[in-house]
């Protein structure tokens, strides 16, 4: 077996790769395409819009002028009725003038960033400490903890949703706004911590302990040795774990829908998207534009983090 490639084989392989990539990327192309199409173009199967329509994006990002909503003539007549008390008139007018068709995308995005970045950051800190402990320290029950860490991850969210919500109710957290927010943070951290710990633990095991010992001989405490030697060497894995936790939080719908239902000011993007789908504002270009904008941070985040993901950082430190 020389691994010699024939022309036919090469073409076949290339074709398979292209097919696979297309299959993965087509949904995204569809989202992008629809978000840029005018209404008359929606039925057109072509991915390229006949005329570019950026209105949906402008609207979502709040770049359009606030539309003055015309009060329908019939309603105007009611409002003109002098017998109607002023406060009733205001209430009716407000119902029609209020710009509730506007989708406060920026706010949802900030909420999503707060939850996912916050939870990912805290999760990462705990994961570093936990992973270091299970990979380096010897203590009673170490193996049990190490193995049971992943067990948490095996239990699906749906199973735990109701008991978790009940627990949160019982201790009174779910009845306040901030309590619910804290609950959701805790849930995201607990959900992401096991895998983060597992990935980091394996990575730490690959860093020779002699490097830490060398740092200790050079005058570092153990904590300093971790900060100055282990963490810089683990940057690729730290970035990976951070992105993993971030994406879990960013896309999470189930728990957010339960805990944040009553608190629209804390709604995250997945929740808001779901609401957008079923609202009277469910217009294709707007839904797709919102989806696109929800996707974007993940892609940016990944591109940014991939700079840290260059492997082989521990090469050359030790021999043998």
């Amino acid at each position, binding site marked *: 077996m020389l691994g010699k490639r024939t022309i036919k084989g090469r073409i076949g392989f290339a074709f398979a790769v292209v097919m696979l990539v297309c299959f993965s990327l087509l949904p995204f192309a569809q989202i992008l395409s629809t978000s840029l199409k005018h209404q008359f173009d929606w039925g057109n199967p072509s991915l390229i819009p006949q005329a570019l329509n950026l209105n949906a994006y402008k609207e979502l990002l709040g770049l359009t002028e606030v539309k003055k909503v015309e009060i329908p003539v019939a309603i105007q007549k009611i409002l003109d009725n002098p017998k109607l008390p002023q406060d009733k008139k205001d209430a009716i007018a407000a119902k029609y003038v209020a710009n509730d068709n506007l989708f406060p995308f920026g706010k949802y995005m900030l909420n999503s960033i707060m939850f996912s970045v916050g939870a990912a950051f805290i999760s990462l800190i705990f994961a570093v400490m936990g992973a270091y402990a299970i990979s380096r320290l010897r203590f009673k029950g170490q193996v049990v903890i190490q193995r049971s860490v992943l067990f948490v991850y095996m239990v699906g969210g749906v199973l735990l949703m109701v008991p978790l919500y009940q627990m949160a109710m019982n201790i009174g957290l779910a009845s306040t706004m901030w309590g619910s927010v804290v609950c959701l943070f805790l849930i995201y951290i607990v959900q992401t911590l096991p895998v983060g710990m597992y990935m980091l633990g394996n990575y730490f095991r690959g860093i020779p302990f002699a*490097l830490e010992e060398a*740092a200790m*001989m050079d005058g*570092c*405490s153990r904590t300093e040795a971790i900060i100055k030697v282990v963490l810089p*060497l683990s940057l690729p894995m730290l970035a990976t774990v951070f992105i993993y936790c971030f994406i879990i939080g960013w896309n999470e719908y189930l728990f957010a829908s339960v805990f944040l239902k009553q608190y629209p000011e804390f709604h995250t993007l997945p929740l808001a998207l779901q609401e957008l789908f079923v609202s009277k504002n469910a217009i294709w270009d707007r839904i797709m534009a919102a989806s696109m904008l929800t996707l974007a941070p993940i892609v940016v985040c990944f591109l940014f983090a991939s700079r840290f993901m260059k492997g082989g950082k521990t090469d050359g*430190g*030790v021999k043998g």
Partner: protein
Amino acid sequence: MASISLKNIVKNYGKTSVVKNIDLEIEDGEFVVLVGPSGCGKSTTLRMIAGLEQASSGDIVIGDKVMNDIEPQHRNIAMVFQNYALYPHKSVRENIVFALRRLKVDEQELQRRLVEISEMLQLEELLDRKPADLSGGQRQRVAMGRAIIRDADVFLFDEPLSNLDAKLRGHMRTEIGKIHNKFGRTSVYVTHDQIEAMTLADKVVVLHDGYIAQAGTPMEIYLDPVNIFVAQFIGSPSMNIVDATLHNDYLQLGEHKLPRNKLSAVSFDDEIPSEGQPVKVGIRPDFFNDKKYFTQSDSSFIFEAMTIELVEPMGFDKEVLFNLAGASIKARLDLRSDVKRGEKLDLLIDLSRVLLFDTNSELRL
């Protein structure tokens, strides 16, 4: 600068005892080499001095301070690791000055020391490289530099040369010797290579199975080993050990009778010389000589017409193998002997170099 004293050091891992009882005094400025086969506890002892392992019992005193519960970073000890343990994410320069930066040493002083050390170890060209871009020998020099740039009380070396090829090892051995002469710091050096032990040490400590078998100057260890283990461990090729019988006037070694009164290295106290007692005879290969090129003296003994079974030329000297009293014996002869395989040769030894060991305890008589 500090002396080190190890008092009844014991180290157990669970039920296995690695270091069983070590009592050792190391003087200020002394270069001590701990040597022994794998698993004898030499590295563990070193790591206990460093503070990387905690002794199960006993005291470690450095200077006049008991160090048992002091963390490694507060012991002011520099260490060179067997696998170098350079920080892969830092340049050579940052690797070397890492400890100084931590101590917040004045920048000018830091640069001065960096220049001095990098000149001494020929690292000037490499300062901006990462460890991954260095060869084994270069990495070794960086590891040395990182240790000696500090103003440490004690230097520890954990088999620093074992990963280098033979030629580089010889070179670095000389360099370490020079560095010690220049700085004169108390040093503890662990190796399983007896040549490193012999050449570098002020004091060699031979460890065996968690105990100190013998401690002394290299020549003491070489000429006056306390038991068969030390005798065979130090010296290359290792000492020949042959079974013999001790009689009132002579030592019966195969068909040879060695006059007992000339065995000046043996102290016969009253209990030993019972007639017909079996003993083990130790003769270093280096003490055999070709009779043709050696003048006999009063204490010489000649093994006549030994049949040479094998000749291994080594350059300046050659090792020859022959049979004596049923054992295969190695002798090291110099350039002048041109003996061939199968020839007969008269071999001369100085009886004052012949050692006797007890058959059971394997201790020197």
